[in-house]
């Protein structure tokens, strides 16, 4: 989605009523974020809305330096910026990809299913992934869920986006794109200069 560099778009302040709306929406989408919400988005702080190409809006905290929080394509769900994901890694649905897939993801390819179903990858399993990998959850995820993509052997997430197919289907077919048009490390959104 952000393969090309993004020219800094127009920045405008968000009304406080809209700000409340964003806040509640974020909590609704990511219930686990609730205890941290005051840290992420202090009530008194001003939010900025930055228009990006392709009808994407980025919401950022208007401090200095500016802290990017969420981005949204039209009326799709709010998707956290990777810097936010890195700060609160435990608050989102997560999957893991194997090492071989990292370089493709970081150069902007769609995440393909085999990267997540192979031995190095992790998807939510009904009977758990074992002690070590409890964090990948036990419930199957539906298409459209926002997932954070972690990588084998890495601590931080490398991509975030919406699932194109459900995890159940992924396990069954082991083929095709799993996450398309996501936000990955080193893409235009990541490198965007915000002030």
């Amino acid at each position: 989605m952000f393969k090309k560099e993004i020219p800094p778009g127009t920045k405008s302040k968000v009304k406080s009523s809209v700000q409340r709306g964003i806040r509640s929406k974020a909590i609704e989408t990511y219930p686990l974020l609730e205890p941290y919400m005051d840290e992420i988005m202090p009530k008194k702080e001003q939010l900025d809305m930055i228009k990006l190409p392709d009808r994407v809006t980025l919401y950022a905290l208007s401090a200095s330096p500016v802290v990017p929080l969420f981005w949204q394509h039209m009326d799709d769900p709010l998707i956290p910026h990777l810097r936010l994901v890195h700060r609160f890694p435990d608050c989102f649905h997560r999957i893991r990809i194997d090492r071989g897939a990292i370089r493709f993801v970081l150069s902007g390819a769609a995440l393909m299913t085999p990267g997540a179903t192979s031995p190095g990858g992790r998807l939510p399993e009904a009977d758990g992934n074992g002690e070590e990998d409890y964090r990948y959850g036990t419930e199957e995820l539906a298409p459209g869920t926002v997932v954070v993509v972690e990588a084998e052997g890495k601590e931080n997430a490398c991509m975030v986006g919406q699932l194109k197919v459900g995890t159940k289907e992924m396990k069954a077919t082991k083929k095709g794109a799993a996450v398309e048009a996501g936000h990955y490390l080193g893409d235009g959104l990541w490198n965007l200069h915000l002030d």
Partner: protein
Amino acid sequence: MGDNGVAGAESIPQSKVVVYCGVCSLPPEYCEFGGTTKKCEEWLKKHHPSLHGELYSEAAIEANLSTLSLDAQKRAEKDAQKKAAKAATAEAKEVEKKAAAKVYIKRVERNKRKYVTAVAGLEEHGLELKKVAKDLGKKFATGSSVTKMAAGGEEITVQGDLTEGLLEYIVKTYKGVPEDNIECIDESKKKKAAAAAAAIAATEAGLQGR
């Protein structure tokens, strides 16, 4: 996901602080995919030695390699090399461009004895025109703004004849701009000089005609 988050059990919400590489801006563990791996490693060694020891230890590298099949390893290697080469050429180009980029300080006559000074080309040296304009206005206590040029692009227009002051100020405050790259042009003088040259040529021609 449900109730499997460890952090959710903590009473005090606290965000994790992640170190980002100063060279490629990714978390250091992803530097190896960036193409500027060498530089990233040096940076990390200098700024976060403990993390460097962890990430670039021999054991870590070996563990990284062992998870891939030989074939995939080779392909990844090739890809990394290509990326590195690309990054290197891009950087070289950037440096070259910067070395060649000139900054023009131009005095433009507004109205007999009233001048504005236009500064063009600062953006090539990684300066933000809007901010610089504001600073210049403050420093010289005059109006200063970013204006669009007829030829495309933007320049800073400062009110008043400040050619010399600007030259000195820019060299002093913005170290990224080499003095040799700054050129002062006096538009009105140029016109006069051209006119004078033309006049001389005309009289000479006239003399020769006689």
